[in-house]
């Protein structure tokens, strides 16, 4: 039963990634693109954790934690650059 649920979860998050990619390419303003990238990071974390359950290993938790940190810092740096024209003042 978990195998079928994992396949459904994989396809849902993969479709979500495609929708985010659409917003990333179309999205009229820069803030839209930053938001789309941030959502892509979150969906990627979900895919990593689902893949860890599929493989039955706990290796992917460290990867997803690092991914979450890098995603947050890059989003904040990008917004800071838009707001102030500089990242570290």
């Amino acid at each position, binding site marked *: 039963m978990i195998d079928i649920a994992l396949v459904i979860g994989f396809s849902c998050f993969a479709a979500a990634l495609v929708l985010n990619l659409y917003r990333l390419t179309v999205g009229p303003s820069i803030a839209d693109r*930053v938001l*789309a990238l941030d959502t892509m990071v979150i*969906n990627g974390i*979900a895919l990593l*954790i689902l893949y860890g*359950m599929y493989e039955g290993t706990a290796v992917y938790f460290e990867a997803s934690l690092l991914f979450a940190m890098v995603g*947050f810092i890059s989003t904040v740096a990008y917004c800071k650059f838009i707001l102030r*024209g500089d990242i570290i003042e």
Partner: protein
Amino acid sequence: MDLLIEGLIAFLIVGAGFFGIVGSFGLAKLPDLMTRLHGPTKATTLGIGGVLIASMLFFLWERGHFSWHELLITLFLFLTAPITANFIAKSFLHRRMSRRTELPPTGSSKGWATFDGPPIGADGEPMAIAPADRPGGRDGERG
């Protein structure tokens, strides 16, 4: 008992996938950035939460010991999601200066922080946050 736990994990994964795809569909479908912020920051956080609880139960059920990694990821994501949303909304407001007139009054002597100048120090001079001779200025719409 095994069937019950297995069904609970499967339900959590499917529900999380549903919330994830709804959040991203909202991101692609909604008309304006301020409405688009609702999709990812709420629904995808629920989706991630569902996946992490499912993974916690799964490893508890399969290995027999509790893993703390998921709680770390959940804590980190739930702490950072509002900060990210606030930053994106602020940068969106900053890029659309025409919205300044549409915003409600703040009810204090200071305006909205995104549009306001640097705070005035004790000596009557603006506090030095950024160099004043930056091209474009504080309120300039930068290309």
